[in-house]
């Protein structure tokens, strides 16, 4: 069996298991896994830009916030768009579109910045957008906005959002697989490794960077909108949160930045540690989390996937040497 078939088989199996889990899982674990789906989907979306092209954004929470507030205002001004779960469709898609368009506009000036300058510029963008939403009265970021619950009658909310976020994670993952294997993905890798060389190899670097940025922002915007629904009542500080921006980066780092599974594995590890293992040490948990993050990054600079790959390479090198010696 090729590694590709194995990967597809494992993915399908995981999706099936995930689909059946809520049938017997209690509310606590359903909520933990729902949070995992949401966070992992964010990390996967961040990874398309930050991991594949090397443009680390420190302000992706801007798109969570814009997505959530776009959906809320759209419903308030033009809604409702039906009732029950279907009422989410138009606002969520529109939120993605708005974030994508916004990203395309700011891409022109800020994607010219490289490395840490881009990271800081995005941090600035998220602060500015957050402040605007907070202080411009029309946005009502200070007082807060409501989103009508789309949860169908008789369904537990955590189960409903479990499926919605699960589906979005799957969507984000499949998109990043498609990107990775396409010409688009190669362009982004080339940009990450060396942008000048990429240009010299005929890669239209500007265009591909903007495409990755818009795609990433669109996905995060949609996730932000659904998150808005799941919270129900939004203020600026519910969604424009620095810890959202940082988590996306940390989860990718822990799992393996720029890889397909890294963001998901990293999120799983970190959420398991913080939500399950440390749930009893509320007073200490940030301290311990910090220590764990530093340790993992020091011991495994390539993340879990990177460590796994280098282990595998080592053992196959060893096998090769033994074979070569035997041949001699």
């Amino acid at each position, binding site marked *: 069996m090729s590694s590709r078939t194995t990967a597809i088989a494992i993915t399908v199996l995981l999706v099936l298991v995930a689909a059946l889990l809520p049938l017997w899982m209690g509310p606590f674990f359903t909520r933990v896994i729902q949070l995992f789906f949401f966070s992992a989907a964010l990390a996967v979306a961040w990874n398309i830009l930050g991991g594949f092209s090397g443009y680390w954004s420190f302000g992706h929470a801007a798109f969570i916030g814009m997505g959530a507030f776009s959906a809320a205002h759209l419903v308030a001004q033009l809604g409702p768009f039906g009732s029950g779960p279907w009422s989410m469709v138009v606002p969520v898609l529109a939120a993605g579109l708005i974030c994508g368009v916004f990203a395309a506009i700011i891409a022109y000036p800020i994607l010219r910045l490289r490395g840490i300058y881009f990271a800081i510029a995005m941090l600035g963008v998220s602060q500015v957008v957050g402040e605007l939403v907070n202080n411009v009265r029309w946005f009502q970021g200070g007082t807060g906005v409501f989103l009508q619950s789309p949860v169908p009658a008789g369904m537990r909310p955590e189960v409903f959002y479990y499926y919605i976020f699960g589906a979005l994670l799957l969507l984000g993952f499949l998109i990043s697989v498609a990107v990775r294997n396409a*010409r688009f993905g*190669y362009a982004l890798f080339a940009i990450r490794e060396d942008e000048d060389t990429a240009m*010299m*190899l*005929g890669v239209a670097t500007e265009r591909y960077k903007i495409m990755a940025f818009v795609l990433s922002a669109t996905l995060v915007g949609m996730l932000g909108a659904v998150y808005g629904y799941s919270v129900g009542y939004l203020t600026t500080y519910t969604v424009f949160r620095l810890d959202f921006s940082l988590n996306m980066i940390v989860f990718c780092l822990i799992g393996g930045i720029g890889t397909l599974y890294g963001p998901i594995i990293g999120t799983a590890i970190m959420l398991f540690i913080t939500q399950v293992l440390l749930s009893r040490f509320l007073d200490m948990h940030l301290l311990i989390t910090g220590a764990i993050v530093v340790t993992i990054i020091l011991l495994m600079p390539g993340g879990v996937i990177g460590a796994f790959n280098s282990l595998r390479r080592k053992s196959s090198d060893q096998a090769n040497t033994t074979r070569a010696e035997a041949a001699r």
Partner: protein
Amino acid sequence: MSQIILSGRGVSKSFRGLKAIQDVDFDIPEGSIFGLIGPNGAGKSTLFNLITGYYPLTAGEIRFKDQDLSPLPTYRRNQAGIARAFQISKPFPALTVRENIRVGAMFGDASRAASEDTVEQALATVGLQDLADRTAEGLTVGALRKLEVARAFATRPTLLLADEPCAGLNPVETREMVECLRKVREHGVTVWLVEHDMKAVTSICDRIIVIDAGKKIAEGSPQEIVADPKVIAAYLGEPLEEAGH
């Protein structure tokens, strides 16, 4: 002689007050292997950077296949047929040799399937088939240089600018690289080569341009160049009695 593929007239570049390239003319005939030599800091890499569009010209004009290059961004110049192998090898370290070359092949005008043929052809041209599935990270300097040439070759250029492909190579590797460039030319690619290794340059080049302190000081066949007193002076300094004046 055949047609001129690349020509420069009055090519100049200043960085603030520093005149890096001054009024250089050149005509590169199609199908030739051309040399560009000069002491360190003479402006050889700057000249290549002007041709690839990394810097804009301060004055003058560069024409490629009779088309003015100045409005084209770097990636368009590549798509038009100019490739460059960098002096300091810049492979994508996390990718395998084949994937590195594939990046070069992918962004030409070809379809995905056609680009796989190009990748294999480039691997064969430089003789890297055995290392194709290794990551670029662990390669020797010699292999990295070949990869650099292969990746540029995979963009299907008609002109390859090779910036010191033999620097830091041992004599065996240098000979292999010279062979490699000959093979590139056999595929119909014009080669313009910056090189310090005089043996390599004189053995392979049809014609050589010499620049010093940003100015062209000589042009001719390898035999003419090595005998040219101006070239000798630029490389070795003026004879002692003249320097005393």
